[in-house]
């Protein structure tokens, strides 16, 4: 998140660390999932970190974000509390919502991470609604609505986009196109035309960039966020790829819905590795310092897991609270 308006090196290191942190959190989840202590479905974003980080780095801390079932990266990039996230995934009392939702419902309203909703596209109108409210209040906030490629198929996206343009709402729709909905390729769900024809049909300005290129994402996001802040909703298409199975910790390229070859092409476009190289080559990152970063962040991550594991399970009676406000 854009907390200071530092110089280029600042944001670059910040973004690198942020991507690395997300990667290490999710790799650790993947590693420990088989212990069967994280007892909820998990949808990992490994391979997609640049979109979350590049977009969120263009946001202020009180801007808002809504996410979907695949919310870990968004939550962390927006500044959500890591310990509370892990405790939530472990179903513990110290979870960000006390264990009520698990991985698919992560939120941290204090950080502007408003909600994650696991019904496809269901958070899109909510995001459009906070943008409407913020426009009323003229408070300068922008809302980002992260959505997958499948969301363009759900009518509610169109209903929301039509309204956002009609009212000039401060919202950025960020489509992370990872080519799949579960096991189904985009080509089997949508006709062959540019995805950006969809926002265009609603009169919404849009950019389409490489979602694995942190710099490209961040630049497009800065444009999108500032355009939205001035009352013009925007749309970003970020092409990326999820490395692991749709839901769960494993690789699944062998089961037949996509090829190992396709995966390897995208693996080679690893947004983290690519950015690390770039920063090393440009001298922003000292050659040996990445390992140090990794070590420090992994220590933080391990601490968060330890915190989650130590946190107590909530008591059944706690389930009765908060049905009504």
């Amino acid at each position, binding site marked *: 998140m854009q907390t200071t308006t530092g110089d280029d090196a600042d944001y670059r290191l910040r973004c690198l660390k942020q991507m690395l942190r997300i990667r290490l959190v999710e790799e650790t989840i993947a590693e420990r999932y088989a212990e069967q202590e994280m007892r909820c479905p998990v949808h990992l974003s490994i391979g997609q970190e640049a979109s979350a980080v590049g977009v969120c780095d263009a946001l202020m801390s009180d801007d808002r974000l809504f996410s979907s079932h695949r919310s870990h990266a968004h939550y962390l990039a927006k500044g959500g509390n890591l310990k509370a996230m892990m405790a939530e995934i472990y179903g513990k009392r110290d979870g960000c919502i006390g264990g009520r939702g698990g991985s698919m419902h992560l939120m941290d309203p204090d950080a502007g991470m408003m909600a994650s*909703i696991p019904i496809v596209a269901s958070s*899109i109108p909510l995001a459009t609604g906070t943008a409407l409210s913020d426009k009323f209040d003229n408070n300068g906030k922008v809302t980002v609505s992260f959505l997958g490629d499948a969301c363009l198929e759900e009518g509610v996206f169109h209903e929301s986009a039509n309204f956002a343009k009609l009212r000039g709402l401060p919202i950025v729709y960020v489509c992370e196109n990872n080519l799949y909905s579960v096991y189904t390729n985009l080509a089997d769900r949508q006709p062959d035309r540019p995805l950006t024809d969809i926002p265009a049909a609603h009169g919404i300005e849009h950019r389409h960039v490489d979602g694995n290129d942190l710099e490209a994402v961040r630049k497009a996001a800065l444009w999108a966020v500032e355009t939205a802040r001035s009352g013009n909703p925007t749309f970003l298409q970020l092409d990326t790829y999820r490395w692991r199975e749709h839901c769960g910790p494993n690789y699944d390229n062998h089961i037949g819905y996509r090829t190992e070859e396709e995966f390897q092409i995208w693996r080679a476009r690893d947004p983290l590795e690519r950015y690390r190289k770039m920063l090393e080559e440009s001298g922003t990152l000292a050659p040996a310092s990445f390992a140090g970063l990794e070590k420090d962040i992994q220590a933080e991550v391990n601490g968060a897991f330890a915190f989650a594991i130590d946190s107590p399970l909530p008591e059944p009676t706690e389930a009765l609270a908060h049905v009504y406000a």
Partner: protein
Amino acid sequence: MSMPETTSAPGAPVINMGTAIRDGLLEAARRDPSVIFFGEGVEDPAALFGTLKDIGKQIGHDRMIEMPIAENGLIGIAIGAAMAGKRPVVSLQRVEFALLALEQILNNAAKTHYVSNGRHNVPLVLRMIVGRGWGQGPEHSQSMEAIFAHVPGLKVIMPAFAEDAKGMIAAAVEDDNPVVVIEHRWSHYTTSPVAEGYVHRPLDGPRTVREGDGLTIVATSYMTLEAVRAADKLAEAGHPVEVLDLRVIRPLNLDPIVESVARTGRLLTVDTGFRMFGIGAEIASEVTSRCFDLLDAAPVRLGLPDHPTPSSRGLVKGFYPDATRIARTAAEMMGLDDAKISAIEEDILAARKDIPLDVPDPFFKGPF
């Protein structure tokens, strides 16, 4: 026939329920600038059957949000605005239009407070109108409160009387929860004296509108009016029965009903929805479990028969429960003899004259 409305302001002007709702909404919106209105035609000449008339003129047109015809999206947007601190009031011309938005309503509106562990509130009012009559037919006249009533996290109210509706709608707007308000078009016409200015009626449960020891009738919405009419004729015939206007379907407060049935030993429910798997079943079954030893007979439920609502006035004859049917059912439950029952029925029919079936009966319009 006088309505069982003990107005808080004797001598207050007599208005109908539609106008009272409009006044209640306006008062609530005046007191809180975060109240905003969504509707298809929110400021059009019809103003949602007059229930939003001139509100924009009074509170500012910017607070009146015209909805594109996109119920799922726009109700989701209203929920989002509520999460950000607004108090949106969404008005739909028909209950059926909400069917498009049930994912948003049953998941995001109903559960966000709960799932967020109390971090978010969704102070949202969802008004929807039951469009009975004039051949509206199968897709423009359904009631459907049973669907909303099934879902924890929603509140569901069905006002039947003018002043009560005015106070309940203000309470709904002030409530920090999503409140589904199901308004019957024919209840909109009910008139009674309504206190001017701000009125608040807590969303706390049933209200006794007729007293009697023969039987307890629990009715909802417009059916309360038919029940009152039946009760008045039964009382005239020497058999007073109790009528409770349910008012709040969820959260369901059965205490006053249980208290009444404990006294009368008999329960009759009458509602505006399909009878099967309808709200009467919950009431009957729960009251049975709480008063089993005090019941003289099994509870009886009236509601719509098990088929869609046809359009033709030929086909809807007998479709809706009415005062005669309520009176006959109640009288049979109390063991009255058939001659007496027929006389009561005829009495009711005579008062009704030959008003067609498919338009509201003016009996509930004063004067008082």
